[in-house]
């Protein structure tokens, strides 16, 4: 599983990174690297069953009451 994830991410990196490196587009490379490593971290966390807070939960905390209020208001 972990090997699979790493392999997948290597393929993703291989798609673009070498070309960016050659063209010396560091900015692109940096942004891509950040997204890439975030993805890798999250995926590995998934593989290791780490408790990562769900963004849906955070949204629910803020917007659950809003929705409730709206529902009461109109529905």
């Amino acid at each position: 599983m972990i090997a699979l994830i790493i392999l997948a991410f290597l393929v993703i990196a291989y798609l673009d990174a070498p070309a960016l490196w050659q063209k010396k587009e560091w900015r692109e490379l940096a942004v891509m690297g950040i997204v890439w490593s975030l993805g890798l971290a999250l995926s590995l966390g998934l593989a290791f069953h780490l408790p990562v807070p769900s963004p849906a939960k955070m949204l629910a905390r803020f917007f659950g009451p809003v929705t409730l209020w709206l529902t009461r208001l109109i529905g």
Partner: protein
Amino acid sequence: MREEGYISPRQASVLLWFAILPTAILFLPALLTLRARQDSWLAVILATLAAGIPALVIYLLALRFPHYTLFQYCELILGHLAGKIVAMVFVLAFFLLNAVVIREFSEFLTTAVMPETPFLFFACSIVAVAVYAARNGLEVIARCTDFIMPLLVAFFVVILLFATPEMSLRNILPFLENGIRPVLGGSLITWPFMGQVIILATYGAFVNPPRSLGWSLITGLLGIAFFLGLVTMGVILVFGACEATSLTFAGYNLARVVSLGQFLERIEVLFLAIWVAGVFIKIALNLYVVALGLATVTGLKEYRPLVAPLGALNVALAAYMYRNISEIRQDLLTVEPGWTLTWQFILPLLLLLVAWVRGQRRTGA
């Protein structure tokens, strides 16, 4: 950043259909009948009318800033820092939206079609193909849509036509049983799907004559209301409001009851095929928009390198988003309306107001 390539107004409006319909026809009818019972179709129409407001906002903004994407004119309107922050909010919102879509897609397939298959497999595979499409740019996505749209329409027609023997017109009565409030509540549920018209503010910048964006918005919204209304209506007519609430994937069940004579039964696999194609477009479009937005905010020359990592991150996020399908349904009922209203309705409205007050416009991009 800009992309070379333009799409026609018709392609823009059809893309809009695909940005909303695929997941909506599957998940919406059940949730909607929960709230609005047999008047759900009315809720769809009301929600369409409501979605007309952000559509108008998008149109006005597009007139002010032709050829600029949402992410670009955020910065033009609000200035450098605030603009970037707001644009980033949009990027994140689209990103989360895509994660939800991916999760909905894979949950459905796991539930209804191939229960032994882990949902991550569906998520990974569809995103892989979507990444391939998104990397090739908007034109390619639009052309794929051109190809799939007739199939989708034909399939809607086939299903609804063949389901007519099962329909009973009495099921939509009584009209407005509990007054208008449940219907309004229903349109609130519809909003998370309907509000995605905002996506036209991003790729709308590439519509060829920018003025015809209005046409795209109108036909797009009308088409969505038409098809979504038809499917909702079909579900209510076939199953009745009581039963529809208990069917998780009511649209799919509609395809399952269809039978024409003895030979054309069980065509839900075809439904599945068309639906997968639809969701594929939706995911590809969202990925494209997210990558484009992120590239704009961070000032990159190219969005392409971002697509694949974003797709991977999206899959991982989709896996983290919810623990089970009930959470998705719960989220769609109790959280998404507020959240989507905020970023799909209020935020663009604020943008327009600020632009109006500061008198900003760009012509001749």
